């Protein structure tokens, strides 16, 4: 313990001196453009690199979805005008080629799950907020942090390169199940695309692990004086646990990917057994395609929590600040995050109820899966109670946070259907699943991300986003999101990943609905482009931030200068005396974490139901 303290103090003094040096002679002056903006070790710059790369990937991934929605909504549309860009992927009749459709859905899933909602969300906000909110000069290792981004960048380059292969990018689904993805003769995307895909994912995992190690170390070791674990703002808890999940589950995906690379290129049979394809009986024997699914979903399921936990953390903070109320049930919020973290590792096989897995194992996973709904429900009720009797300020950040809660409820309840194996027999691999996970972890995570971007944009860039465009963005997005994904539940018998359902009488009744969904999807994409415009425009031309703490928030990032340099605080790092949620306490609008407790004041959680007595006082006060 004492050793740890000494290390921390040494580190702080060291960085303090550093910061002072820079502070004295305008540290911008020393740094070249490359070391400041490209190979930067400043967590704030790295966060922005993650964010902007994530935005670029989101445009690509969203654009792909527009293309395949056109195929689903307007199967007869003449797309010959796209031929100059897409070449042979447009059939002679002017439609999207089926193999291209498969590549589109595969890349859409991969890009959004990994590059946007993992790197773009966790990478951005963990990087940006952890040091600022725990009171650290920077991450534990700025250099490793920089490597984390550049591995992500490399991974992006490899994935982007796969689009230009003659045989196209991977086209066997973002889950890359073998044998479809293990055998080059099974699909055009499996010829070379899957090798690129696997290499890219391997690099991506390196990036996630380097980043995660840093987040964990920083949260554990570099908290400022007085910042106990139970005084941490909720986003930090969420980022911390997200990193823990990533650290434990991504290596399993790495092994799954490496074994697949062996099967593809070295003639091994980890996932292959008794296969007859293309007129040949292959020599592979003894492997199991189900083994891959177990390995994949051992990451794949925790991955959805890697995506949603940061969003939950951000939303908790935003809801509390803008409703001028403490987050309700802070301790319960932390423990429910912990419960989700632990449970996320023992629910993976609910993706595999109908793969031929032993039904008894299936029933155990039903139990764990439905248990995980309890901490999720607790979180929802706590968010609702946070709003109750607040003084709610509706800026775009708050609107997106409220939208998150709504989407999380709407998408979450359908998980109860899918987690129950008997109902899953009917719903597995249908549009009901598509609707469920898009609402609960796709759009909801995006809403968490938007809430974060709108809330912390002034801190990040020293300027405000245009709020009118922000409001339009919110309304456009939430209306379109519901219009796209709510009616999709009624397509509960339609199999996923079909470029057309026209061959089946049973599935033919949804042509009109599919068209409607496509229109909503295109509109939604347009609103996102508007946001992107607002984002980049405001970085340079937005209204300048003139006050240090525009939201009257308690957390430490608002004690830094308006445009913090590398090292974050000009002088000494502030000391923390209380938790982050003393809003509307004892008649005061907010009490920053840096303010010592007054003599009569008890800290949150120090004894029973202080808040209850508080509310009674309030009642009396109001008569």
């Amino acid at each position: 313990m004492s050793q740890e303290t000494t290390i921390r103090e040494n580190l702080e003094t060291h960085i303090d001196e550093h910061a002072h040096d820079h502070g004295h002679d305008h540290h911008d002056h020393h740094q070249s453009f490359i070391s400041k903006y490209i190979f930067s070790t400043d967590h704030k710059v790295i966060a922005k690199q993650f964010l902007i790369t994530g935005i670029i990937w989101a445009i690509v991934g969203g654009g792909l979805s527009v293309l395949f929605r056109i195929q689903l909504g307007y199967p007869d549309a003449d797309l010959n005008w796209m031929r100059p860009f897409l070449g042979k992927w447009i059939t002679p009749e002017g439609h999207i080629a089926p193999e291209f459709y498969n590549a589109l859905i595969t890349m859409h899933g991969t890009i959004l799950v990994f590059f946007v909602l993992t790197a773009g969300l966790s990478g951005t906000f963990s990087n940006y907020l952890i040091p600022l909110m725990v009171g650290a000069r920077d991450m534990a290792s700025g250099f490793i942090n920089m490597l984390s981004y550049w591995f992500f960048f490399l991974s992006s380059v490899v994935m982007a390169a796969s689009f230009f292969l003659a045989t196209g990018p991977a086209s066997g689904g973002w889950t890359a199940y073998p044998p479809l993805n293990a055998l080059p003769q099974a699909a055009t995307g499996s010829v070379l695309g899957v090798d690129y895909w696997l290499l890219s994912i391997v690099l991506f995992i390196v990036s996630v692990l380097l980043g995660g190690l840093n987040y964990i170390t920083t949260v554990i070791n570099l908290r400022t004086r007085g910042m106990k674990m139970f005084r941490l703002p909720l986003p930090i808890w969420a980022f911390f646990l997200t990193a823990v999940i990533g650290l434990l589950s991504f290596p399993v995906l790495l092994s799954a990917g490496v074994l697949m690379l062996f099967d593809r290129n070295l003639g091994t049979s980890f996932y292959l057994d008794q296969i007859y394809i293309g007129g040949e009986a292959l020599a592979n024997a003894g492997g199991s395609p189900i083994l891959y699914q177990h390995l994949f979903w051992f990451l794949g399921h925790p991955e959805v929590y890697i995506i949603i936990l940061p969003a939950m953390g951000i939303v908790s903070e935003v809801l509390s600040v803008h409703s001028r109320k403490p987050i309700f049930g802070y301790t319960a919020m932390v423990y429910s995050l912990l419960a989700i973290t632990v449970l996320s590792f023992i629910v993976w096989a609910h993706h595999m109820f109908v793969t031929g897995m032993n039904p008894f194992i299936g029933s155990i996973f039903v139990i764990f899966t439905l248990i995980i709904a309890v901490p999720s429900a607790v979180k929802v009720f706590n968010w609702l109670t946070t709003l109750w009797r607040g003084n709610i300020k509706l800026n775009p950040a708050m609107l997106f946070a409220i939208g998150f809660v709504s989407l999380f409820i709407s998408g979450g309840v359908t998980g109860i259907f899918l987690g129950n194996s008997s109902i899953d027999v009917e719903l597995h691999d249908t549009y009901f699943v598509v609707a469920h996970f898009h609402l609960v972890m796709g759009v909801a995570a995006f809403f968490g991300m938007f809430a974060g971007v709108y809330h912390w944009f002034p801190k990040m860039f020293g300027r405000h986003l245009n709020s009118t465009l922000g409001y339009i963005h919110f309304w456009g997005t939430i209306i379109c999101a519901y219009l796209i994904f709510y009616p999709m539940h009624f397509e509960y018998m339609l199999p996923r990943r079909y470029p057309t359902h026209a061959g089946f009488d049973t599935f033919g009744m949804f042509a009109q609905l599919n068209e409607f969904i496509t229109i909503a999807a295109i509109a939604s994409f347009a609103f996102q482009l508007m946001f992107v415009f607002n984002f980049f425009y405001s970085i340079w031309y937005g209204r300048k931030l003139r006050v240090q703490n525009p939201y009257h928030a308690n957390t430490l990032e608002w004690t830094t200068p308006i445009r913090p340099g590398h090292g974050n605080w000009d002088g000494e790092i502030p000391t923390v005396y209380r938790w982050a949620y003393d809003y509307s306490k004892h008649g005061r609008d907010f009490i920053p974490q840096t303010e010592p407790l007054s003599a009569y004041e008890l800290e949150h959680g120090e004894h029973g139901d202080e808040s209850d007595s508080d509310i009674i006082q309030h009642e009396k006060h109001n008569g």
Partner: protein
Amino acid sequence: MTGWLIFIAVLLVLIVLFQVTRTLDLVSQLRGDDDRQLEQNTKLHATGLFIFMVLGIIGFFWSFRHYSDTNIPVASEHGVYIHNMFIATLIVTGIVFVVCNVLLFVFVYMYRYRKGRQAVHFAHSNKLEFIWTVIPTIVLTGLVVFGLQAWTKITGPSSNDALVFEMTGQQFFWTSRYPGADGKLGLRDYNLICPENPLGVVTKEYVEHRLNLLEGNAALGVMGEIPSLQKRKEELPALIANLEAEIAKRPNRYKKEELEAELETLEDELEDIDDKIKIRMLNVERIKNKYTEDYYMANSEAMTWGYDDILPSQLHLPVNKEALAKITALDVLHDFDVPHMKVKMDAVPGMPTSFKFTPTITTAEMRQTLSSNPIWQKVKEGDTDPMWMNFNYEVACAELCGVGHSAMKYILVVETEAEYEAWLAAQTPYWNAVASSLKISGLSELAPRPVVEEAASDSTAAPAAADTTAIAINY
């Protein structure tokens, strides 16, 4: 040209709109009274959210009415359990969905920002948190218990007199197989698959035929895949050299590119040809190692099961009789999906799976039911009858299997016991159709095989136990 004009017009409109939003932002800034501005904005958007909620809830209930015709009737016994679970879950989650969303938007509206008002410092309450931890736990426990009861019934063992059939998925079609009069499906071995034996059924003749196809048999005039590939390998270098010389001579660019593409194909072929030969030689090796005299002795009876297997072009099942689908795949993952029956099970190469179900509505009855459904009144293009008249149960593939994933349709006909028996009696064993075209010695002796009678009576003998690589599907 018009395209460009529209583009420019849209661009101008967007610029104008953006300038308006900028002005709005600047005006509010100049006015200086941030609090009042915020109060107004908050009121506007809180009202908006409230209206959004009201419309949303109306839409929620309306949509159930609107889409009621798209629900497909449940046509299997276990499908009813699933449907009941679905409805129970729908009611529970429907209440949660409506109540939570209403609370959310109502709270936002009620407690919207007003200047000078103070929020209540209400940080936690053990009582409340206890209540809303316990209630979901109890409700979810109920759903788990009922769900697992249904699950156990669905996945439990099938009855002994269940009708067994087999579905095999491959890119991109299904093949079904029924046991013949002996009631047993023939053994299978993927090493024996060839055009005359699409599922790799094991019989002595198929083994010989497959070896002849691979290795060749001069006496029968069969070239054999391996010898022809070896011959091709010897020819290829000369072909490539010729083509290269031809290309060098050609001054014409267009023709040249065509030839170069051809050259590339030949070079690729040469590169892959060794692998192709090796794969086939290993195939021969596996067959020879396995089908020895000892194997024939030990499995003499099991080797005859395949002769009377039926490979029909449609699935037919009698109504109200339990059916057991044995599900396999040859190449990649597929999934045997029968939406009306609520049947779904992956087809995995190398790992047989199964799903038991009892159809409860015949195709004819279902047509009758759908005759009053507006959706099925539609007349399809090139058709004269409304759709319900030609309704059939459809089997689909529900696991992404490649470029033809959405084309894997198969027809399932559910009929009365008598109709089913009549249909079955009209089917001829697959063997009868192909036996005469097999390339094996002593072809003249090969007449369609009679049913082996003792096999049908003695079902306990399971010589297939000795067999490890064949997909032995008989229990």
